[in-house]
Structure formats: C-alpha cells, structure tokens
C-alpha cells in the first residue's frame, strides 16, 4: 500500500492530507524558508503518533513534528519528502497537581491556556515567549523557549520534569520523573531544545510556580541607550533580580508609537520596561530602589503601574513590537542572538552599522537583563535582491555577536536557518559529539533530519 493509504488506515481519511493547499499551508512556519511536506497528519493520541511514525519508517520517510508553526528558525520546514506530524489536536491538560505544583499536558496545549487554567491555584508556567498566545508547550519544549520573564525564572529547560517521547522507530519512552533527580543520564537535557530531531514529544510534565503576591511595572525613558544599559547594570549590581528587564530602542519606540498611539516618549534613545514582583510586604521597597537607580542613571520620564490595567497598558507597547514592524513593510525578519549582558551596547551599535551598510531598516527590542537581543528588519521580499541583503546582514550580525562571546540563538533555536553557521561556535569535534547524541536517539536519522547540525561533508 502507499504511504498515504497506510496513514489513512491509522487515522482515517479526515486526518491525513496530501492536497496541494494543505501542503502549502504546512510548508512554512514563521521563519523565512519554505518546504513541501509529502503528507500532513493530525494524530490525537500517543498511540496514533507511534503508529504514524512506524508507518513512516516502513516507507522510509522522515517525520517532522509541528506545533502552532510560530517557530522562527525554519525548524519545521520539510527538506525533501516527509510526513509532517501536526500535534495541535493533542491539546488536553491531562492532570493538574496543585499541591505538587506540576501538570501533565499534551504538546498541543497553547502556552497561555495552561497558565490561565492553573491561575485558580495561584500557579503558572514560567516560560512566556512573545508567541505565547499561539505557541504550544510542545513547541516551547522543542525550542527551549524563553521570554521576558525568564530573567528571574530561567528558560524552558528548568520547567520540564518529564517527557513522553515517541522515538523515530516508534518506541514510546518516558524520560524524567516527577520525583527529583531521576536516576541515570538526564536525557531531558538534550530532548529539550532538540527541535524535534530526537523524536516526537507527546506528553510533558511541567513545573508550575507560584504567582507573585504583587507586581509593579516601570517604564523609564532615557536619552541614550547607554544610560538605560547602565541602569540595568546597576540594578543587577545591587542584587535585584526583576521579573523582567526589557529594552526598546529609539527606532522601535517610534515604530510602536506610530502603530499604537499610546503616548510613548519617542524622543528617548532607550526605553526600559521592568517588572518588579514578589512578596507583597516588600515589592514597593524594591520598586523604589529600581526607580531611584533609573533616576540616578538619567531617566527623564518614569511611569509606574501598580494595578493590572495600567500594567497591561505599559506592556502593550513591548508586546506590539511585531505588529508595529509588520505594518511598516510586507515582511520582517526577526533575529535572535545572545551576548554577555555587559557587551550589549557595543554590539547594538555594530548591529546598526551592519543594517546601515546594507540599506536596511532595523529596530530592536531585547531582553536586556540577560543579553538576549532581537534585531528586527522590516523589508519587502518582492524587491529584487532585498532578501539576500537581509540574510547577509543577519549573518554578519551573528558573527559580531559570536565575536563578543555570544551565541547563535538565545531562545528561538537553530533549525534550518542557522544550521550552517554552527561552525562559528563549535569545532568539528564538538559537532561530532552532538551528532552522536542525535544518533543515540535516532540511528536512522528519521526525526526531523537536516536541522540543527550542519550536514557532514562527503
């Protein structure tokens, strides 16, 4: 029987698609590359995923897991023929243990839906990528997603206790445990952030953490971005770890203001958005300390929110950054890289120089507290040669970041987009060791092949 017929025997015709429209829709994620999966399937249980994977293996087709498709590194793009396993129908929150602060969830659960469900217990899932209203927990695990509030709580790696994984040969294994320090090698470490290359995650035990008793938000405007960066340094030097420390540069502030008309101080060289959260008895004292540092470092406009409504307004600008860029040009390219925090200012100015050289319009939002920057380039891909300039500028920006001691991705992943740049940060020996990890899980190289690791030269 054909691949499609065999898959239909498992899932029925209504959850197996090989028509051109579906293949086109699932041919792309939020990155800039496109592929063409042979067939798209929508399993609803672990058993179905395992059966799909076995069918694909029998026909010698690779499998590519996909969540909501918000990935920015072209990590779910089909390279050649493939079976795309879309997990959005596996979206049940299976079990919440409020006392233990954990929940078993399926990979298709949307990030914000989980925290909304656990709010009644005063708990939440800490990683909060900007895509969180759409992106799924499975996708968060695949990329090792971060978000503004990972400054205080860490990225996804610290918030996943166990994973049910369907390997590329269709075996189901549970990795990790609700109990601390599961015995043996900690395979969770490599599965989280593996972008579907080690198997398909079908269930996740997440850690839930207590909601803060109180949150205050401060938006401070500085004349120079250096002053804003100095304020960040001083906050950290004083031993304060705010829940989030986000920077918006001058160009981005203008873009957001044109989009939202929210009255942002657009004359600012840099805006710093800070969440101070924690114990109800001390949050205002910490807020005062943060405001004092901002004033000392030259903030000329400080807006503070103590209630949810005003807080949401202050955050609206930051959260609208992508929308603001989308309305400036038909396409945008979002870079994700990470440098030692103390090198941020010099790196940003070099990044602007690169954009200028390529005649590109660029603006920046970044997680200033942990050195994770997100240059955004607004462009029109239909203009001949522009996309090439964007890609070239992007690579130059990465080189600058790596030279400053940084890395290729802070929270979006490597995927296909940055795969061939991995030798910038790893030697052949390092990469071979990573290939060995991949091969231990997937000896036949059938799980999302051709991602993360550069292809070996023949």
């Amino acid at each position, binding site marked *: 029987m054909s691949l499609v017929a065999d898959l239909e025997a498992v899932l029925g015709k209504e959850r197996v698609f090989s028509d051109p429209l579906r293949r086109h829709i699932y041919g792309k994620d939020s990155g800039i590359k496109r592929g063409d999966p042979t067939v798209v399937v929508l399993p609803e249980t672990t058993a179905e995923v395992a059966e799909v994977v076995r069918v694909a293996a029998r026909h010698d087709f690779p499998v590519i897991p996909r969540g909501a498709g918000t990935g920015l590194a072209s990590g779910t793009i089909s390279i050649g023929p493939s079976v795309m396993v879309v997990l959005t129908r596996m979206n049940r929150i299976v079990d919440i243990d409020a*006392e233990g602060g954990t929940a078993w969830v399926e990979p298709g659960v949307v990030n914000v839906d989980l925290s909304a469900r656990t709010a009644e217990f005063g708990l939440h899932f800490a990683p909060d990528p900007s895509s969180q209203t759409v992106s799924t927990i499975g996708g968060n695990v695949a990329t090792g997603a971060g978000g503004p509030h990972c400054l205080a709580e860490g990225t996804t790696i610290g918030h996943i206790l166990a994973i049910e994984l369907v390997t590329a040969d269709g075996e189901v294994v549970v990795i990790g445990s609700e109990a*601390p*320090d*599961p015995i043996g090698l900690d*395979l969770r470490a*490599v599965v989280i952030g593996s972008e579907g290359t080690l198997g398909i995650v079908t269930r996740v035990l997440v850690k839930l953490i207590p909601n803060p008793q109180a949150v205050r938000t401060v938006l401070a405007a500085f004349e120079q971005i250096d002053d804003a960066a100095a304020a960040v340094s001083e906050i950290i030097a004083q031993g304060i770890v705010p829940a989030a420390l986000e920077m918006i540069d001058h160009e981005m502030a203008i873009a957001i203001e044109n989009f939202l008309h929210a009255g942002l101080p657009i004359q600012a060289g840099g805006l710093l958005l800070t969440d101070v959260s924690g114990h109800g008895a001390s949050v205002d004292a910490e807020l005062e300390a943060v405001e004092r540092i901002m004033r000392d470092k030259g903030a000329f406009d400080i807006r503070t929110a103590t209630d949810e409504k005003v807080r949401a307004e202050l955050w609206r600008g930051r959260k609208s950054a992508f929308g603001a860029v989308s309305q400036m040009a038909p396409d945008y390219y979002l870079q994700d890289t990470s440098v030692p925090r103390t090198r941020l200012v010099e790196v940003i100015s070099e990044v602007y120089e690169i954009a200028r050289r390529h005649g590109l319009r660029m603006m920046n939002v970044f997680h200033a507290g942990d*050195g994770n920057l997100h240059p955004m380039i607004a462009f029109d891909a239909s203009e001949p040669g522009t996309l090439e300039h964007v890609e070239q500028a992007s690579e130059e920006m990465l080189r600058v970041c790596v030279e400053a001691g940084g890395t290729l991705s802070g929270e979006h992943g*490597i995927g296909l987009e940055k795969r061939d740049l991995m030798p910038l940060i790893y030697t052949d020996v*390092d990469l071979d060791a990573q290939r060995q990890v991949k091969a*231990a899980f997937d000896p036949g190289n059938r799980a999302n092949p051709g991602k993360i690791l550069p292809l070996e030269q023949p």
Partner: protein
Amino acid sequence: MTSLAVVRRHLAALVVEPFAGAPVGAIVVAPSTAEEAARVLRTAGEHHLTVVAWGGGTHQSYGGAVEPAIILSTRNLLGIDWQPDDLTVTVGAGVTVADLESRLGSGGQTAVLPEQPGVATLGGVIAAGVSGYRRLRYGPTRDRVLGATFVTGDGRVVKGRGKVVKNVAGYDVPRLLTGSLGRLGLITEITLKLWPVPASIATTHVDRPEEGHWYRPLAMLERNGHGTVVLGGHPEAIRADAPTHSPGAAWPEPIADAIRLEVRVPARHTRAAIGRIPDGWSYVAQLGVGTITVGMGTPDVDAVLELRRWAESTGGSLVIAAGNLPIDPWGTPPLSLYIQRRIVEAFDPHGIMAAGRLPGGL
C-alpha cells in the same frame, strides 16, 4: 612489564603521589589542561585500563563499584573566571565548592551549590548532579550549568554550549553531563549562572514547615522531627512571613552515618516518606523538593528494599549514596536505558570510564 607500568612511564610527567584514601594499586595522574587529560585517556584506552575521574572524592560512593587502574585527578584544573556583571563564572573542575562560593560571596553572589560541601569540587558536584537545600527556590544545580568542556573516554576535547545565560544553540550536552558520574568522560571546565545573595537571610524553626505560608522560601527542611525554614529576600518580607526568626541560614547537621540513602519522591509524598522511615534511623527531608537523605547505623537490607519498593511506586527512587549494602545501588533502571547505553558507548567506546557505575550496570 604490565600495561599499567608502561602507562605509568608514558605519562610520567603527569603522575603524582597517591593521596590518602585513593584506591589501592591505582596510579594518580593530574593533568593541568584538557589536552593533557585527553592524552591520558587515549593512552588508557589503548591499554584498556579503567579510569575514574576524581575531585574531592566526596561522591565516589555513588553507583556501582569500580576498580580503577588510573585516577584522573582534577586537582590541577583550577581557573576561575568570574564575570559578576554578567552573573556568570567559568571554573576549573578541581576548584572546591567552598573556595568558589566564598569567592563569589565576597561580591554578593552565589552559584547556589551545596551548603555543606566539605572538600567537594565543582567538577564532582556537577558529575554527581547533586544540589544544595536552596534548590527549592533556585532549582537544582543542573539548571545553572550553562556550558562545559569535557574529555570523552576516547580522548576528544569537546565543548558544549557557552558562557551566556540564554543559549539554545545545539544539544545541551553540559546538562547531559550533569549527573553522569564520570561515565561520559572527564569534565574539565564548567560555566555557571549566578544569583545575587538575597538582601537578607533568616531561619525560623517550626513543626511541619510545609504547612506554613512562606513566599518562595530558600528551603523547608526537617531533621529527625525538627523543622527549619530558611527565608531569603527583603527584610520586610521576612518579617511578614516569620515574625520570630534568627539571622542567617542555620542548616541542619548533615547525616553522618556510614550508610546513607537518598529517597527521591514527588514533592507531595515527602511527608509520607518521612512516615515510612523506621525508628532509629536519622533523616534530613527537603519538603517541597521530595529528597530525603536517610542514615542508618546498622544495615537493614529488608527495610531498605521495602522503602525502595514504596519510593518506586510513587515514581521515584531510592539510591544508596554511601556505605556497603548487598543490593543494587540504584534499583529499577529507567525505560530509556537503551538510549543511555548508546550515548555512553559513543562517548566512551573502549568502556574505560567508570563502567558499571550508572543504573542498569551501565
């Protein structure tokens, strides 16, 4: 000449005097660089000699027994590159936890490593995957491991991840090394994420710490029925949570019995685990975490096995951390053992690095 004698001559420049407590008959080599360590491992591989990585020796009692021909000491791997403004530190594996934390503490920072480390080294703590009591607030040690350099069993120097706090480039090999008990190779250097020490730290003693209303305490502990809560944060917050407290962290006295177990259960079963500890045994329970360190004066294998059966029924484990008991040190191996075996065989193809130490005889 025996192969060990040949190797001793070949590695003469790196051989040092055996230290007190070193396994009898083994030669001790102390490389100063990863490349020197790689030479040792390549030589050992050629001669099929078993190698054990050794820091302070604190955690050598974990796992299946190994009889090494070569002790690969980390005593000469001693660099510290501290970047306080970036909240990171890069450390040679042989640096002791006590030295590192004292250095970081002088600048108001901490790597949140075990609070009573004795002579343990950072390399040992990472290899054993052990955490301090403050993991309740900051997560296990593994969460702070940002990057590592290690030498595989066949003598390749491999670097994983890097020195920045946010990094998802490539597979997270450094965290895979955490808890691998030297089975994948010798860890030579580690980069850790740091935390500022809280403005104020205080201790309060209460019965049943888990029933109190504390806002994200550093630790909730119980030693032989005596509860301790350690709080960290703004002084106002501490006063609000614990009107009666004493300044500083008063950690419970460690379990000193020759036989020491670790019961690891889901956090909500910690109180039940305490209830199952036979009279006369001592324990330190980490409430909210699910780890109970248990000590016993005289061995009682049946009682240990019964406790293990129960711990495993909750999805947890019972691990022998120290002392000789005639039972498997780990208990039932994990389902993913076959994947673990492939990783071990790839990184240690000659099977010389502490073979048999991991669960399942791996």
